[in-house]
């Protein structure tokens, strides 16, 4: 499968990473190789196979509705890169 620059940039945008133009060529080549390697799987006809959505084969694994906070705010904020008072603080995002 051919990957063009637009596809690469779109993926980069979705992953929120920046790609230096000097890296583009090499990354496109890598991606094409990875995808052709995975495309090997297309040779198998899976038309009649139901997709697996879960590896455990468990059904109806549920919990009862009992409330319990398992983490304190202090613990939760401890590993945050930045905080402000009781809030997580992140670079400005506007949708």
């Amino acid at each position: 499968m051919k990957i063009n620059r637009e596809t690469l940039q779109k993926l980069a945008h979705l992953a929120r990473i920046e790609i230096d133009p000097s890296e583009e060529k090499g990354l496109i080549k890598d991606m094409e190789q990875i995808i052709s390697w995975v495309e090997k799987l297309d040779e198998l006809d899976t038309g009649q196979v139901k997709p697996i959505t879960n590896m455990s084969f468990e059904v109806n694994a549920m919990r009862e509705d009992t409330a319990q906070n398992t983490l304190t705010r202090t613990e939760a904020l401890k590993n945050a890169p930045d905080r402000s008072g009781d809030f997580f603080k992140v670079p400005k995002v506007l949708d």
Partner: protein
Amino acid sequence: MMSRDGYEVVIGLEVHVQLATESKIFSSDVNSFGGNPNENISAVTIAHPGTLPLINKKAVDYAIKMGLALGCTINRELIFDRKNYFYPDLPKGYQITQDTTPICVGGGLEVVREDGQKKFIELTKIHLEEDAGKSMHVEGEDYTLVDLNRAGVPLIEIVTEPVLRTPEEAALFLAEIRKIIRYLGISDGNMEEGSMRCDANVSIRKAGEPLGSKVEVKNMNSIRNVTRAILFEIERQTDLKQCGKTIFSETRTFNPTRGDTTGMRTKEELNDYRYFPEPDISPLSIDEEWIRRLQAEMPELPQQLKARFENEYGLPAYDAGVLTEEKEIADYFLDTIGHTTSYKAVSNWLMGPVKSYLNEKGISIQAFPLAPARLADLLALVQSGTVSHTAASQQLFGYLLEHPDESAEESARKLNLVQEGNPDRILALVEEVLGQHPDKVKAYLNGKKALTGMFMGEVMKKAGGTIDPKETSRLIIETLESKR
């Protein structure tokens, strides 16, 4: 509804309802509104590596109940899907939702428009998902604050087909949905606090043409604002069409102060959510027994109850509508008529003095001091003529509210409100009054029939309101006529 210039309006709604479970949908954190920031969180909610979501059974139950209430087909084999997007209000980088197997499909709801026309609003689906946290953008600062208390709160999203044609239909639909979720007890449906939220997809087209570009309007925190936002959007789109301009398919936010909508700037040129099955949650298989159990728990729903109030108890449609507005009022009515068959009288009392009292005190019927049986006793006193309606509503009712444990009849005696049914006493009073006004009696006999009202007033004054007005009126006329 046709907009100006004969455009047909097409509206579809997406209603998010927060489920009133104790805990969140995929973790045990407390599910409650308000609270201090980041109080109700867990390693699952803040998306620490290695954590796994486990679904709350109650949330599934609630979603199924809503589906049953709206006549949906319940999907029996369910999986969840990941909707991928980067936004700090959901730190996993995706929302767990249902894309391919919504828990309920089809179904719908009938609304009755102001003009009496009925309209069935079809649903596309109802699916289960998790709510996101809240981000606060501080004006002029280069950072955003995040509170994850709401992240992971269970939601159902109810999606209608694009079959609504007027803002009125949208408002009626929302009011009915809110009533149903409250009857089911699955949410408080508070739009101001965001436990029920509505996005409206609005477009216009010439009749018979394909659907126009769809504009999604967000941020309406009341049914009234949903109406205002849709009205504004119809006008705006019609204006654009009239000037020959293009209507862009976009998301717009409603501004309640100005009453208009503005386009939301979006960095995302194209939303690509890359849905795929959520591998961390095992599939759900809903069997007959599960559904039967929930069916058995279902209360009678507002529309059924309204019909029953009209058909079984002969209440006017208006009364039935008012009484079924809230489940608790309807229950109170049903409890009261367990003690009396004067259905309409109970309705009148509930819609009149009781409602006024509740409004005045700002309380709900659950906090109403008088037990249904007591109210029925009070009504019985009026029905039997023991206490006049006026005395009952203006004095006895108030007294019983202060003394809810005392018997209605004893209280009436204590307050001296018991009407004398004794014709001898009434007759004596009538004779006394007539004796004091010989000229008026003459005038009556000469044809001034209207004077009975004046005699009535005098007699009642003497009796202090404790005699039966009907009987009194009868005796006054009888006595006067006997003097001819």
